[in-house]
């Protein structure tokens, strides 16, 4: 059990527990906090793999901006605890074992496959950030500029959607 494997199991357990907590919490704020835990543990996994820039961007953008937006909206809409509407018993009895079976099948297929070498990049030719940015501005410059348009459209859309009605 190398240290990397131990850290992987700790972070993976944290991520799975966060995802389970998202499902089982009743208040949306607690679900949001669980999702933040999942995102931070995934950022830790990216760091473990050597993808340091993606880890930092994940925390800054996903954890520090998108989830803040979610938390603001939950507070703005004063979302309360979920009410108990009638979920059919059949869904619970048949659904959960089926879901577990599906996941297990998926996991077994992946485990038996030959996905290639170990995921982990000790040293590359260039530093991680440099390589990503060179690729972003050379091969992928067209999608990069398109995403800037996408964000502009999203900003305009969000402003138009969320403004008050002019009575």
């Amino acid at each position, binding site marked *: 059990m*190398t240290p990397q*494997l131990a850290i*992987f199991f700790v972070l993976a357990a944290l*991520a*799975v527990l966060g*995802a*389970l907590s*998202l*499902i089982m919490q009743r208040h*949306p704020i607690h679900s*949001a906090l669980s*999702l933040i835990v*999942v995102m931070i543990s*995934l950022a830790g*996994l*990216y760091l473990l*793999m050597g*993808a340091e*820039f*993606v880890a930092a*961007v*994940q925390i800054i*953008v*996903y954890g520090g901006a*998108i989830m803040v*937006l*979610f938390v603001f*909206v939950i507070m703005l*809409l004063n979302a309360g605890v*979920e*009410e108990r*509407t009638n979920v059919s018993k059949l869904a619970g009895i048949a659904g959960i074992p089926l*879901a577990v079976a*599906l*996941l297990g099948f998926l*996991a077994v297929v*992946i*485990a038996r496959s030959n*996905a*290639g*070498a*170990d*995921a*982990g*990049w000790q040293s*590359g030719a260039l530093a*991680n950030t440099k*390589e*990503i940015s060179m*690729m*972003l501005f050379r091969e*992928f410059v067209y999608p990069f500029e398109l*995403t800037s348009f*996408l*964000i502009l459209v*999203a900003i305009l*859309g969000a402003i*138009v*959607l*969320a403004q008050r009605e002019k009575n």
Partner: protein
Amino acid sequence: MVPTNYYLILSAVIFGLGVVAFIFKRNVITIFMSIELMLNAVNLAFVAFSQARHQSDGQVFVLFVIVVAAAEAAVGLGIIILTARNRQSLNVERVDLLKL
């Protein structure tokens, strides 16, 4: 080093949990959060493959996925605010005016 398969299994598990949350939860914001969870699981798979093949394409694509998720979250939450104001409730089962 950690074998790639482990990351892929974790990604599949998180994706599956996202699907379960999407189906079983009734609060529209929680459903939206489960979509973000699924996108995160896919990001993990991308980065795992990118590191296994020693190429940066996967990580560049992860950046694009994060940007698109941000744009989608902004517009989606705007729609959710409007719907919640309109139907006075955050329960998806109450948005049923088109039901027969």
